[in-house]
Each structure stands twice: as structure tokens, then as C-alpha cells.
């Protein structure tokens, strides 16, 4: 089926929430519509489903990778040419711990950033239905569904009080 999208613009939170209720009542699934805002609102403001993510796994995996790389770097490089300096042990735990710590933190941070981008479903190559007024304070309700159901969705959005409707 050919999927198309449209966007209804609302000026206040209550009407946008009503639009989501109305879409749900008309049989649209939660994956067929989403709210677009220029401001972070508290979760559930529009009655939308709570997003599920696995972000907290990313820093843990990154930290483990960073720790292992730090361990290999500090032991491997010193063992590769075991040059005793100042009578100190070839593998000294305190200085190794410093570099391994930085490696662990760097790994955790890099993976977290990749995780944030991935879990945010970015980069997004095609914007779909979008309007620049969203970053001016309008609340957008985007519906992406089969082409023949789009007309009904437009009717629902108009009925609940959309200021404007654009097709993507």
C-alpha cells in the first residue's frame, strides 16, 4: 500500500490531545500518528504512548569497550618493548588505571552519543509532513497512513479544530 502523510497544526495542547483521541477513536493505530512540537512537553501531555528505548545499554557497552581498549593499550604497548625506566615495574597499576579510566569514560560517552542519535531515529532522510510553524509554537499532529485513509484523517483533524492542514 502507498503510504502518505499529512500534518494538522494546532495552537494549544488540549486541542492537539483531542486530535490524538479522535484519531484513536477512528481506528488509527499509535504508529500511524505522532505529535511534533518545538518545545519539550512532559511525557503524556497529548496522551501519546510512552516511547520505549534502550539508551541505558549504550554507555555500558561503550564503557566495556573503552576499558578493554585501555587495558590492551597500556599493557600491550609496554610489553611490546619491556623497557625498565627508573626501576619501576613494566606494568604499573596506578598509571594504567588512569589511562584505562579515561578510555572507559570516553567509550561510554561516544557510545551514549551514538545511542542518543540512533534511539532518536536520526538521521532521518525524508521529513514527511512537516511545517516550519512547529518551531514557532504550533503543535503538529502528523498522520502517516495508507493513501485512501488520509482523507478521513484530514476530516478528523479539521473536526477537532486544526488551524491548518498540509500534506507531506
Amino acid at each position: 500500500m502507498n503510504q502518505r502523510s499529512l500534518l494538522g497544526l494546532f495552537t494549544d495542547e488540549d486541542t492537539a490531545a483531542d486530535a490524538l483521541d479522535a484519531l484513536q477513536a477512528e481506528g488509527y493505530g499509535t504508529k500511524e500518528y505522532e505529535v511534533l512540537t518545538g518545545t519539550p512537553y512532559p511525557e503524556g501531555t497529548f496522551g501519546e504512548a510512552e516511547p520505549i528505548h534502550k539508551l541505558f545499554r549504550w554507555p555500558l557497552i561503550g564503557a566495556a569497550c573503552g576499558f578493554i581498549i585501555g587495558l590492551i593499550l597500556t599493557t600491550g604497548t609496554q610489553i611490546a618493548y619491556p623497557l625498565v625506566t627508573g626501576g619501576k615495574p613494566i606494568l604499573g597499576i596506578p598509571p594504567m588505571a588512569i589511562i584505562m579510566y579515561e578510555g572507559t569514560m570516553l567509550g561510554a560517552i561516544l557510545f551514549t552519543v551514538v545511542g542518543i542519535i540512533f534511539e532518536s531515529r536520526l538521521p532521518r532522510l525524508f521529513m514527511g509532513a512537516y511545517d516550519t510553524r512547529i518551531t514557532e509554537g504550533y503543535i503538529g499532529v502528523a498522520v502517516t497512513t495508507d493513501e485512501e485513509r488520509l482523507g478521513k484523517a484530514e476530516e478528523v483533524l479539521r473536526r477537532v479544530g486544526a488551524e491548518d492542514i498540509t500534506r507531506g
Partner: protein
Amino acid sequence: MQDHIQIDHKDINRDLLSGVLGTPSWWLGAVVFLTLVFLAGIGAFGYMLNKGIGVTGLNRPIMWGFFMTNFVFWIGISHAGIMISAILRLTQAEWRRPITRAAEVMTVFSLMAALMAAPLVHVGRPWRAALWVFPYDFARGVWPNIRSPFIWDPSAVMTYLTASSLFVFVALLPDLAVIRDRATGKWAPKIYSALCMGWRGTPRQWKLQALAGILLSALVLPVFVSVHSIVSWDFAVNIGVEGWHSTIFAPYFIIGAIHSGVSAVAMLMAVMVWLWKLDKYIRPDHFDAIGRLLIVVATTWFFFFFLEWVFALYTLEGPELALRELQVFQWPYIFLFILFLMTAYFIPVPLWLFKKVRRSIPLMFFTTVLVNVGMWLERFLIIIPGMARKTPLTFDWGTYHPSLVEILMVASTFAWVALGMLLFSKVFPLIPIFDIKEGMVFRDEVKIGRRTIPASIRE
């Protein structure tokens, strides 16, 4: 925060993007001036490369002079971003909103200045810095000695720089979308579109953005602590210099860094109000809050400074006492020591006790400039007198006179940070737009008895 103005989203976009979508009249002149100062430093650096490190005032036994002082100073300033952004974000302090971005960006440029000040300049032959990372004998595979603090330093600073830059980038994503929607011309919309990666503002993206702020803050904080600890160990693990070999150096350096860093943020806030006319967003209440924070930070720093002296004098060891005498009673250090104490603590802190001072932008600017003069001198007074004295592992006495080459290179780091901030402000907003808008959404007025008080609602 009693002092609040409710502003429409459209006006927020217009105000906070005025520097991006337009060009303030003073901007070009400032950029040209700072570029010239920066280039003068680069010229001095080139001259030093050509003639050798002898053109500086560095000589036995003082081999760490202005460059290392400046390195420690800029590392200190870089702690501002994380102190303000991460800690205030984690504690959900409402007054953080207009100042987090500028503080984070200052962190990034300060770290670059720190890297310019020490590894690239101080070593005399900067290409040797590569040997801190790669084997300096490829044939036999002799790698850098990880027991040296000069290996710990780049690993910590580069981790911090990477983390801070990514922190800035992640928090910029929603604002990049705002610019994308407003940019005109052929290339600007395309570039901002690519940078924001197709941000639309779905609940999922906002949730991840909120989590990113908390998670990255929590991850960057331990790095922030490690960076200045490691910088302090450049000194503290050195057993040959009295005054450096101290167990208290790590926390003492960290709190000193926070003192100078937070002061630099207050300075920056004043500059933003004056130059970008952001007085609707950065209010006297914000200066009041940062002033209160500074009283606590400055006094904690002073406590560590006091402890460092107690530990040094309590042992009654001859060389240590002689070093302290040099720092406090001999010219020119006596003058610098008095200037340092007055500017870093005894003038600003008593002034900050007064609400009128904390709410006055010119006075907050003046006092925080004083703090940074004092904190630069603090690093100078730790480094130079320590090395000037003959110690068991050195054979010379000496003094230090910075050369014009060093002065120009130090000036160029200041120009670099200011220039970086100005160039950043031309392409990205210095105040996080989405954070301000969120603050407006969560604002309300509460009626208590006969008073109506502005309040912030929190989830």
C-alpha cells in the same frame, strides 16, 4: 527565580537567532581585532619554531613559565561548562537555562586554548607531541611511557574535549532545526538540515534529548574531576620541587578551576547581556544566583588554599619554609601574592555578600574579571617560585622574565577563546532556544494569599 518575563515562541526565535540570521554591527570589527591578536601569537609561535625555545624567558631551572601557567588557567576555565551545565542540569536548577550553552561552548574553546598553550607550544618542537601517542621508535616498537603524567594529560584532556564537544552538539540538535526552518539562501538551509539530521520534535526525540542531558552530564562529571586532578599530578607527582609534592593538589586544583570557571561564566553572561542585548533572558536573578554559588565556591577554594599552606608550614622543613618565604616576602612575588589574594578572594567575596552587588551586571563583571586575574596569578605563583629555588635535584638558582614571544602567545589564547565564541555565535545560538521555551511552558503564577508569585512547575 522571582524575576521572569513570559515571551512568545516566535519572539524567542527572533531574539535568540538575531546573531545567527543577522550580523550585529560590532561583530565584524571585533572578529578582525581578535584575529589580528591571534595571528600575532601565531607569528610569535612561528618565530619561536624558527629560532628555538631560547627566544622565550625559559631557562634553567625555570622551564615552566607563562605557557604552563596559561595551560593550567585554561584547563580551569574549561571546568565552567560542566560545573554550570552538568551539575545544574542534574539538580534541575531553573536558572541554568540561559547560560548552559555559552558555558559549554566556552569549555570547548578553553580546552583548545589549553592544548595550544601547552602541548603545541611548550614542547618547543610541537611535532614531538605526536610521539606522546605513537611509538617513537617504529622499528623496535618503543611506545610512550605510560608512567609519565604527560601521557595521562593528553588522554584526559582529549577525552574531556571530545565529551564536551559532543555534549554541545547533542544539545544543539533541536536548535539546529529551528535555524533550518528559518535560514534563507541556497546553502544555509541545506547545511542546517544536514546538521540537525532531520529533527522533527517527536515525543521520542524530546525524551531522548532530556535523557541525553542527564546521562551525558553524569558521564562528563567524572571526566571533569579527572582532568584537573591529572593536571595537578603534573606537579604533585614531582618529588623534586617543594610546594608541588602535595596530596591536596587534586581537590585544590579542581575547586580552583571551578572558582575561575564559574567566574568566567558570570563574565560571559554580562558580555552576552551587553553585546547581544539578551537582558530579557539573562536577568539580575541569574547574576544573583551565580553570585551566591561563587561565594560558596570561592570560600571552599580559600579553605583548600589555607590547608595547602598549613600542611606546608606544619612540617617546619627548611626548603619548604624558604620557598614560602620567597613566595610571600620577596620581590616581585610579594606584590603578585598580595594582588592574587586581593583579586581572587578578599575583594570579590565580601562584595558578593551584598545583594545589590550580585544583581548589578557591571559589578559582577568587574569582580569576576578580578577573580580570573587572581586565579591566573595563583597558577603563576605555584609554578614559578617552586622552580626558581634550588632543590635537591637541581643545580641552579634562577629567576624568570617572560619574553615578548611568550606574552604574545598568551594573549593569542585569550583572543582565540573570544574569537571562537564570536564565530560560534554567528552560526549557532548562544542560548539554548528549546530550553528557554521549555522554561516558558513550565512557568505559571501561583496565588498565595494576596500575592501572586511566579513559579516553575516540575514533573
